Structures are given as C-alpha cells and as structure tokens.
C-alpha cells in the first residue's frame, strides 16, 4: 500500500506540471515526454555510472527534463490551443518512437532497469529504501506544491496566467508572450520530470510506455479530476486515480479502462470543478450554514 502512495505522489507531482500549464489556458497532450526523459535520464546515469548515488541520479534526471523543457519550449511556446496540444503530442510521440526503435541503446519496449541506488552512499535494502522513497516523494510533493502555488501568485506567475485572458495587452505591457509562456512551460517540464524520476526510482524499471500519449492524456485527466488549476487538487486527484485504477484492474479485470472512462465522464459532467470544486462548494456550504446559524 505504501508503494502505491509513493507512486501516487510521484504522479501527483507530474500532474502539478499540467495544472500549472492549465493556468495559462493551454493543455499539453505530450507532457509525458518530460516524465519519460527524466526517468530515462536516471536509467542512463545508472547504466553509465553503476555506483551512482540516488542524489546524482535524481538531479541528472531532473536536469535532463528541465533542459528538454527549455529546448521544446523554445519551439512550442509560440503556439496556442489545438496546435500547442498537438505539437507537444508530436514531440512525445517522436521520443516514444525513438525509445521503442533504438533497441540496442534504450532496451526498446522492455525498457531499462533502474537498479536500487545507494542513498547518501548508504546501501539500503528494499523495505527501508521504499520507506525512504515515500518520504522523499512526500517532501518533494509538499515542497514543489508550495513553490508552485507561490509562483502562480508571484509576478511571473500572474503574467503567465494573463496568456489565458489577453495576450495582446501582455504585448502592450512590453512583455513577450513567448518568454512569459517559457517560464511556466519550463516549470511544468521540471515538475513532470520530478514525477518521472521518482516513479522510475520506485518502479526500478522505465519503459517507453512512460512517454505514450495515453499517459499524457491520463495526466490531463487527473489534473481535471483534481480541479483544473488547483495544485493540491493534483496530488489528491493522483491518489484517487491510482487507487481507482489499481482496484479497477484488480477486481474488474478486463474492463478497467471502461471503469476509468465512466469515472472521468461523471467527474466532467457533474463535477467539472473537480475535487477542488467539490471541496470549495462544501466549504462555502459549511461557511454558509455557519453564518445562517449565528
């Protein structure tokens, strides 16, 4: 159960990247790209430097994701709406095909292993390692969650959010929409990368499936499930999604995809605000009754 939570936290951090991006009114259908680049970055680090410590693997994976966020961002930050979504999809599918194709380097469809690294150069056996990874993921989720929420309120974050409402006025404030978009894009790539490397370290194996478009769709699904734009919602959404998915595939063996699809439909049609929306209405209702109560 604890590993399930760690995986949910890792995925939650990645979904935070999508949530941050949603605040600019743009949806990316290819952010699994950075998720996979970080994970494979970690895998390659361990392949080339077998004794590498967790910190080295984590940082190199993260740097790989952030750098590719800058590179792809330079190209993609110019586009909006359907073209932004589809271009991100295209880049992730290109990376996915490369992972599948160049078998002798990337292990093809079977992916690459991430043997358990030392933690601060201490050898750990499975139980303690998984416990450590749980607390690391929890710390990253809280830390990055706090930073993302603060960033969205900061000047650069608010400017990023103006892309959703009026890019013309943004230019007439002397700002380049591309550069403003880049800030948010690179942050979202870093967040997805963090999720990816954590997931890789916990799973012990990374497969091209990390970069497939359905995983990007899944992340957008969770972002909306959590409440579009709500950073804590992303974490809660990921936890609920992982639990529903694991038990759906355990009990509803061969129809787990349908169960998730119906679950998504219900959320969109009846609770478009997602969990954060439900939470807010609940809070208002309690506050409302309290006021009326006094």
């Amino acid at each position, binding site marked *: 159960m604890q590993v399930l939570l760690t995986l949910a936290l890792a995925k939650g951090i990645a979904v935070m990247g999508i949530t941050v991006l*949603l605040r600019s009114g743009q*949806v990316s*259908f290819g952010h699994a790209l950075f998720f996979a680049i970080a994970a494979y970055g970690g895998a390659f680090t361990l392949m080339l430097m077998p004794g590498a410590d967790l910190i080295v693997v984590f940082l190199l994976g993260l740097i790989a994701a952030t750098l590719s966020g800058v590179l792809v961002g330079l*190209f993609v930050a*110019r*586009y909006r*709406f*359907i*073209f932004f*979504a*589809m*271009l991100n*999809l*295209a*880049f992730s*599918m*290109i990376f996915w*095909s*490369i992972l*599948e*194709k*160049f078998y002798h380097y990337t292990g093809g469809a079977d992916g690459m292993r991430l043997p358990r690294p030392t933690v601060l150069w201490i050898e750990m056996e499975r139980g303690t390692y998984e416990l450590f990874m749980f607390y690391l993921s929890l710390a990253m989720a809280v830390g990055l969650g706090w930073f993302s929420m603060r960033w969205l309120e900061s000047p650069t974050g608010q400017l990023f959010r103006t892309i959703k409402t009026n890019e*013309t006025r943004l230019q007439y404030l002397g700002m380049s929409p591309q550069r403003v978009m880049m800030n948010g894009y690179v942050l979202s790539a870093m967040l997805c990368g963090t999720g990816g490397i954590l997931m890789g370290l916990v799973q012990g194996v990374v497969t091209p499936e990390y970069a497939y*478009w*359905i995983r990007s*769709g899944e992340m*957008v*699904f969770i972002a*909306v499930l959590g409440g*579009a734009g709500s950073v804590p919602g992303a974490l809660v959404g990921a936890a609920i999604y992982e639990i529903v998915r694991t038990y759906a595939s355990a009990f509803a063996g*061969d*129809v787990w*995809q*349908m169960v*998730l*699809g*119906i679950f*998504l*439909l219900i959320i*969109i*049609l009846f609770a*478009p605000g997602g969990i954060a929306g439900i939470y807010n209405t609940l809070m208002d209702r309690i506050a409302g009754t309290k006021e009326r109560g006094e």
Partner: protein
Amino acid sequence: MNLTLFLLALFDGIAYAALVFIVAVGLTLIFGVMRILNVAHGSLYAMGAYLTASLTTFVLAAGLPPIFAFPCMLVSAILIGVVLGGPLEWLLLRRIYHKPEVLQLLVTFAIFMILEDVQRLIWGTQPIFQSTALQLMGNVRAFSVNYTVYQLILLPIVAITLLIGLRFFLRRTVAGKLILATTEDREAAQAIGIDADKVFLLTFIVGAGLAGLGGALASPTTSILPGIGADMIVLSFAVVATAGLGQIEGAALTALLIGLGRSFAVYVWPETQVLVPYLIMVAVLLVRPEGLFGSPAARKI
C-alpha cells in the same frame, strides 16, 4: 534508389495515404465545425472495421455472393455514424459545448477508453481477418511486384471521390453550406438563425460515419485486433493539426504527404517509419503555425 523503387514507394504511399485521408477527413470535419478534437474517432474507426468484418462473415455464411462484402462496408459506416455518432453527440457532447476546451477533449478521451473495452467485450481479443472484398478484386503486377487492386486502385479512387464529394456537399448543398458557415464563425451563423444544434448533430454523424467508413475500408487489408484505434487516432491528429482547422483539402494533401513520407522511409531508412508523420507535422507547423491551409485568426482590437 532507382526509378523502380521510387515508383514502388510511390504506389505504396498513395495506397496508404488514401486510407489515412478517409479516416482523418471525418476528424477534420468534426474539428472544423465543433472545435472538438474527437479522441474517440479512433474507436469509431476500429468499430467500423469490426462491424464490417462481422457483417461480411454473416452475409457470406448466409450464402450471399462475395460481392455483398462491399455493401456491408457502407451499411456499417452508416450504422457507426447514426447508431453511435448520433447518441454520442446528442447525449454527451451537447452538454459540454460551452465548457472549457480541455473538458471537451477529456470527454472524448473518456469515450475512447469506454469504447476500447466495449470492442473487446463484443468482439473478444482474437484477431479477426475478413478479406473477401480484397481477394475478390485480385492483384495487378507492376515491376515484378504484385499489388492488390483493392489497395492500389480502389482505395485511392474512393478517397478522391470522397474529397470531391465532400467539397461538392459542403459548397453546393444547403446542409453543406450550413456546416461551412458554422465552421467559419459559429456566433455569426447562429445570429442569422442557423440552428447550431442540428448542424452539430449532422456534422458529428457524418464525421463518425466517415471514421466508420475508414475502418470498413481498412478491415479487409488488416487483422482487426484491440489497439488499432489508438494508433490510427494519433495519426489522424497529425493530419488534422498539419492541415489546419477544418480544412478538407488540407487533410488530403497532408495525408498524401504522410503516406508518401512513410513509404519512402521504409525504402530509405526503415527505422524512422514511425517517426515520419510527427516529423512532418513539426516541420509544417514550424513554417505555417496555423497549419498548411489554416488562416491566422487575427485578433480584432
């Protein structure tokens, strides 16, 4: 890369492009009018293929001559459009038109996930192969290579007739003009009294029917098994985005580009065959940010 190989690659490219166009044009139509990228388009394609295979097997088992394989395709395309497309639009999509774009995209993603399992429940997991229509038309020989008449001649003809037919339908008939008007400017169209709901329903049925037709025409050429929907939908995304919003002609040209690109890749560097559609998409959007035929929506200030 001598002349023969060039022509061989050309033939294969055209055959593949025809199929990609037939599937992608339905998606382009829906996207042009309703600004919804129908992720479930892939499932409609797959169910069109499954339905055709089952209908053909049933019809042949009932002793009818093999020529009936062709009407089965039309019947299943219409069934997919009306029986599946209609209710999807009427019951589900109609409730989300005013919702943000990401939610519309996710509703079709949810429908995709549901239909993928529905396919498996109805048709199981074993690959189905029903190629009577293809075998009926036999082969044609070009440069010591046998091509099936079905793929090399019939599919391109159907694709071209579809392109011309759709252009005629959109530009000449009343229903077509309504669809075009709504594609151009939904508010203006509603302002002059076009019933957007009816137009959306009609467009979605035609779009879904085209996806079904794509599946129907593809069914004799391949094994039908779980997962063919997911691959085809990603390819159609590439075609729609590269062509530009709701551009039928754009979809035709892009399908050709992708078809030829893919088949030449097999001859030159087989490893990149899967990469080609996405490389083309990125290259085109680099040069023309709104797609080949898209027009930049100038913002009025």
